[in-house]
């Protein structure tokens, strides 16, 4: 067992080294291996650490990689802390963050939150319903462009455009969903990938509507209205959410609402139907679940959440162009879902921050970031394929007559 693990370790380290070759920096003047070596060192360190953990744990780990006792123990420890404290603590941290951070950090925070809400939306499609969607970013684009166009041409405000964007996103979700209803796995992935690209290309080439690659700019920021009694009269004053902290709080609210929404869906009749479809579509249909309808619903709702995030994104930048919606973005969102743990809400929140904030920290490495990104994903898939925080299903106490009393204390951790 130890030998086997050592062999594995050597193989990973070797492949990592190969992956990092382009980072050695073959420049005309200098040869800089130190940067690549540092990264390699960190990863090999992680691998060795993992090896030690496994060795300490003994042979069982290799057989039962999906039931890691230490994660179970951590999980239990966390679940013993009253949920109110954990959630309250996180909420407090999120709320005071802009007060402690500089503008750049707040901006990164906003980006993280946008991706978290995208990840949560995609979680409905991929995590709950099991439909591999590689073109998810298209719905984000739909939201962004809906708001941009409505605002620029008709002066529609952010709040009025939001529901329209949601509806349009849902329609687009159904448009991509309908023809793919009978597809599974790889074929579905290919079609959704194509759809994502089609949307981007349309945005890029429909000059008269979308201004093509130049993009649209000058959209109004989201507004808040507050009453004013100046001049003895009463009037509503518009306040544009221009500052980064204000935008941060807005997206924070959107994310919190998304979490609540996805959680409620997850634990509802519809959520169970989705998971049943993911587990075994035929068995679900033959247990009386209308699979077609529920799959369309998953697409539509996933698209709706992306659309909201997209509208916010366009409003925040006051600018949008088709190059924000590259295939790469779909990949990142999918990575967030997979890395966090398919179907797991806390996992996705954590993964969203890890995948968006960590590359920011490594900004100095520029394009090589993606390489490290790939390496992290590969290692994750080998070491912990079920994600950072694996999804777990809700436990029920026997007293079914009252639905609430155990909700807060029954040890479920999502």
């Amino acid at each position, binding site marked *: 067992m130890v030998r086997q693990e050592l062999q594995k370790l050597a193989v990973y380290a070797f492949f990592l080294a190969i992956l990092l070759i382009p980072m050695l920096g073959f420049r005309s003047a200098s040869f800089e291996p130190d940067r690549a070596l540092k990264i390699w060192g960190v990863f090999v360190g992680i691998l060795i650490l993992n090896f030690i953990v496994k060795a300490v744990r003994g042979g069982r780990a290799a057989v039962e990689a999906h039931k890691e006792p230490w994660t179970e123990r951590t999980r239990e420890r966390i679940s013993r802390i009253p949920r109110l404290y954990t959630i309250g603590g996180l909420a407090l941290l999120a709320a005071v963050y802009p007060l402690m951070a500089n503008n750049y950090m707040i901006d990164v925070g906003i980006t993280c939150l946008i991706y978290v809400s995208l990840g949560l939306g995609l979680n409905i499609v991929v995590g709950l319903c099991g439909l591999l969607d590689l073109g998810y970013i298209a719905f984000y684009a739909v939201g962004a462009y809906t708001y941009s166009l409505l605002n620029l041409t008709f002066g529609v405000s952010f709040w009025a455009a939001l529901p329209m964007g949601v509806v349009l996103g849902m329609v687009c979700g159904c448009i991509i969903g309908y023809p793919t209803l009978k597809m599974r796995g790889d074929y579905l992935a290919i079609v959704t990938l194509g759809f994502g690209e089609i949307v981007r290309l349309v945005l890029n080439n429909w000059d008269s509507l979308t201004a093509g690659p130049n993009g649209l700019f000058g959209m109004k920021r989201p507004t808040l209205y507050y009453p004013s009694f100046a001049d003895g009269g009463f009037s509503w004053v518009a306040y544009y959410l221009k500052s980064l902290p204000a935008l941060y709080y807005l997206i924070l609210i959107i994310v919190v609402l998304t979490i609540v929404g996805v959680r409620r869906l997850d634990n509802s*009749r*519809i959520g169970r139907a989705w998971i049943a479809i993911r*587990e075994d579509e035929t*068995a679900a249909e*033959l247990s009386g679940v209308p699979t077609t309808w529920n799959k369309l619903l998953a697409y539509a709702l996933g698209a709706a959440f992306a659309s909201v995030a997209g509208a916010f994104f366009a409003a925040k930048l006051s600018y949008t162009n088709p190059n924000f919606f590259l295939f790469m973005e779909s990949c990142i969102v999918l990575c967030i879902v997979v890395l966090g743990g398919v179907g797991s809400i806390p996992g996705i929140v954590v993964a969203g921050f890890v995948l968006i904030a960590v590359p920011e920290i490594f900004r100095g490495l520029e394009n090589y970031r993606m390489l490290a990104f790939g390496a992290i994903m590969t290692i994750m898939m080998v070491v912990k394929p079920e994600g950072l925080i694996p999804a777990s299903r809700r436990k029920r106490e026997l007293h079914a007559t009252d639905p609430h009393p155990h909700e807060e204390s029954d040890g479920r951790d999502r």
Partner: protein
Amino acid sequence: MAELVLQNVSKRFGGLLAVNKLDLEVPAGRILSLIGPNGAGKTTVFNMITGVYPPSSGTIRYKGHQLNHLRSNRIIAQGIARTFQNIRLFKSMTVLENVQVGLHCRTKSGAVRALLKTPFENREETEIIAKSLKLLEFMGLIEHRNDYASNLPYGEQRRLEIARALATQPDILLLDEPAAGMNPRETADLMDLILKLRDTGLTIFLVEHDMKLVMGISEIVTVLDYGQKIAEGTPREIQQNEKVIEAYLGTAAKAPN
């Protein structure tokens, strides 16, 4: 009164005639078994009834309604439930949730209600849980309600499949080889369970290889061979039927004089 009626039903897969002009009646409140050698088309009959694929010709009626081109979930909603030859549970869901999925077709709350958590949704969820727990209690799975379905022992997985099927509140239950892989003890329990279910007014339609089970509880036995019905009758009649013996054991070779 016959509940489920198959008239002249055939199923062709390319060049293979899996079921050939089958006439079958499943009377209400009875236990009917469909037996036959491997590949005789038994599971195909189940698949046609539950809409996995439509019959190539012929009609399937249930309480007077034609089922031929209905989608599976609509057929289930009409009151026909089934289990599978190889267990098909929702593995990463808990035992309770598996049963809750079965109640999907008897409940209404949609996505909007779930998002807003309306009183209606709350009430319905409570009801779903109560009904599911009752069913688990009946099936002797209540202790396992929070276990993942994949962690159940084999015999209990079979029971859970039946529980999930029962959750759809059927009038007729199709069991596809429920005793496959069970030990004699478990099979005996299964027999008791089936009889108990029949006594609640449920019609049972059984495909099974275990002859002890079939002959022990069936009221009517139908025998299929190469997609054709070769015999029908009480277990006793079937056991003495020449054609059936031939289908199972082959023709006796004539001893050379």
